[in-house]
């Protein structure tokens, strides 16, 4: 191996996914003149926001070695709860936001309790929550969309100048999470619990508390996503968010987080969400038939991850 290929390998090591993303971006901008325009890139930013927020949240849970399948339903529940408080002239806009986020956090904390105190595997605990929160969302909303929301509330789904507010929320959340994970002791403990729970306990770490934090924060972020979604679609939709959990987990895993815990970064998660967003956007732009779109999407995602995981090997 020559020196140079060593450098390339090193670069590829940290940037395999980024390179895949750039390659896809370049290909798309050749294939369609509309791709590389400011409005379209802002569209991509807007479109990945909700998935991105969920993905950042579930990164925390995946890092501890758990999983959260309830995201999509919690989004719906938070959305209808917030929307129910967001009719014009009812409460200040902070109330629906806070209640939506609180509803999410409550679901997350319940997940955490089931996992830590109840010793129920996170897959089952959050699957139960997925079903139950969907039911709750339907009960709360009596099965129908909650509409007629105040403009102050729906503005949250809009833009400031050119910049979409949901994208700004995502950036903020990602930055905070980045700081938590890489600068704070709490973040270090999240990695430790996921990397080796037994060792973490033996090191005097309160494993249960760390897990509680991860699930609760993840739930709260799902609440944020639910509020943002309700603002964007100007309705609290009890059937919203079906399948969002899988999209979010996919973004996280594409971004290099291990499903068995202990490995992963927020940066990777954002890259993963971007990759999926750009693929969706590009395929829609290029008018690929939706059947072939599915095939192409599957192939590209596997290809990008393959590239990323085998970078610098051989």
């Amino acid at each position, binding site marked *: 191996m020559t020196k140079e290929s060593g450098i390339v390998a090193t670069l590829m090591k940290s940037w395999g996914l980024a390179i895949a993303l750039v390659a896809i971006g370049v290909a798309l901008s050749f294939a369609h003149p509309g791709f590389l325009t400011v409005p379209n890139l802002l569209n991509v930013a807007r479109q990945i926001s909700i998935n991105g927020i969920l993905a950042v949240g579930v990164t925390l849970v995946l890092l501890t070695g758990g999983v959260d399948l309830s995201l999509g339903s919690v989004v719906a529940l938070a959305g209808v709860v917030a929307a129910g408080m967001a009719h014009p002239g009812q409460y200040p806009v902070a109330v629906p936001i806070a209640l939506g986020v609180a509803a999410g956090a409550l679901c997350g904390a319940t997940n955490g309790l089931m996992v830590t105190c109840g010793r129920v595997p996170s897959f089952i605990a959050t699957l139960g929550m997925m079903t139950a929160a969907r039911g709750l969302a339907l009960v709360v909303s009596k099965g129908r969309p909650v509409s007629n929301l105040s403009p102050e509330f729906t503005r949250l789904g809009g833009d400031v100048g050119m910049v979409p507010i949901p994208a700004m929320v995502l950036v903020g959340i990602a930055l905070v999470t980045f700081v938590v994970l890489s600068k704070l002791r709490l973040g270090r403990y999240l990695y430790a619990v996921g*990397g080796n729970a037994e060792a973490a306990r033996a090191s005097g770490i309160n494993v249960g508390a760390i897990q509680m934090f991860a699930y609760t924060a993840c739930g709260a972020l799902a609440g944020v996503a639910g509020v943002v979604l309700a603002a964007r679609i100007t309705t609290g939709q009890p059937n919203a968010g079906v399948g969002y959990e899988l999209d979010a987990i996919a973004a996280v895993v594409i971004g290099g987080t291990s499903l068995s815990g202990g490995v992963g970064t927020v940066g990777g998660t954002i890259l993963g969400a971007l990759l999926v967003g750009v693929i969706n956007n590009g395929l829609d732009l290029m008018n690929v038939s939706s059947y072939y779109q599915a095939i192409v999407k599957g192939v590209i995602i596997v290809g990008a991850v393959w590239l990323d995981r085998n970078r610098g090997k051989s």
Partner: protein
Amino acid sequence: MLPNPLLQLRNVSKSFAGVKALEEVRLDVEAGRVHALMGENGAGKSTLMKILGGLHQPDAGEIRFKGRRIHHRSPHDALRLGIAMIHQELLPFRDLSVAANIGMGREATRWFPGWLDHGAMNREATTLLSRLGVPIEPTRRMRELGVAEMQTVEIVKALAHEASVIIMDEPTTALSEREVAALFDVIRELKQRGVAVIYISHKMDEIFRIADTITVMRDGHHVATRPAAELAERELIRLMVGRDPAQRAAVPGNPGAPVLEVRGLTLPGRFHDVSFTLRRGEILGVGGLMGAGRTEVANALYGLAPATVGEIRVAGKTVRIASPADALKAGIALVTEDRKRFGLVPRMSVQQNLSLASMRTRWIDRRAEAAVADDQIRKFSIKAAGRDQPVVNLSGGNQQKVVIAKALLTEPEILILDEPTRGIDVGAKAEIHSLISRLARTGKAILVISSELPELLSLSDRLLVMREGEVTAELDPLHTSQEEIMSFAMPL
């Protein structure tokens, strides 16, 4: 008994799923002393220490610390009280850095609560590691370290707590003499500061070098506590085993034709140009310091991490060993140094682990499998609740016995043993040594890697010494000394 012990355990009992591991054990530990805990594999030493360390809750009994009764419910509580522990099982965070591992649970922070001070932690790690004379880059990921290096990290991690009691559960199983000596210097320093050290080891020489008091346990019971100076080795062994130790008949080797010829084996960065010949009926020992690359060579021969350059010939024929399956086909078996990673499937039973590498038929004959398992359990006196007990619940030494038995069940012509007696008690060790000699006598070729020089000297017919990935000497164990070996092993 003792006027005012720092730590008093009274009538501590503990059982697992109905099996008694400890019964009414008592122990007094004084500040500024080294208290050795001795006993056969499965005697309950680790269980007792885990109770002290807050990992297990006792079923009955009481613990007094500085005269006050304590009820600590987690390692967190224990650490807060000032009880730190080096665990027998390595507990690394493989994907975190060495510094993060060392600082885990007591991170340096600055600016505001919870903000990590990475620089300080790296500096601390460097300082602590150098005290043990082991220069490991604090930014390396644990995953890249060998077992011995991980063990030093674990030691350093426990030392870093400003504890008044430090429990060391077999801290030196993978270490070579140099690191052991450094550790002992540190322990003496700790004594001076009034720290109480509880030290568990199966290495007799270590015990007599460092211990002030010795407590012997057998089958979960307290047997005796004596000042170390008043206890002779024979007596100690009798207390542990309950009978006189078997003496190994020194059997002179009778080497035959070469069966394993290794020429110019190289794996860049790990070892370089390793060549040797192993004969039928011969025991070839390999000595060297930690990180010398012995494990890497063994792993290469077994196909776990194949060498990139060089030739391996088995019984005269060149073989390509790209995986352990190839090695087993060529009649090579390995007793791994890293049993947790390569040796055992933790949640599988003793029986299933034993047979895993030697299942020859498509259908499993359960009755035969059980018979073999019972046979091995008897032969190696593996202390288990039964052949169906998951290996993860076995004591460390008993797990090691399973690993050895498992390798032998493949009926290899060439057996590579990497630190085979790691954590094995004196009695069993003697038996394993005589087993190795017997195997050699029946014509098997054996390669033994060990960091215990006495073991190497007494066991091998011929001795290789490695240093920094290269073979530096071939010695005759009958005409060499520990000093000579060290001179070839020490880095220049």
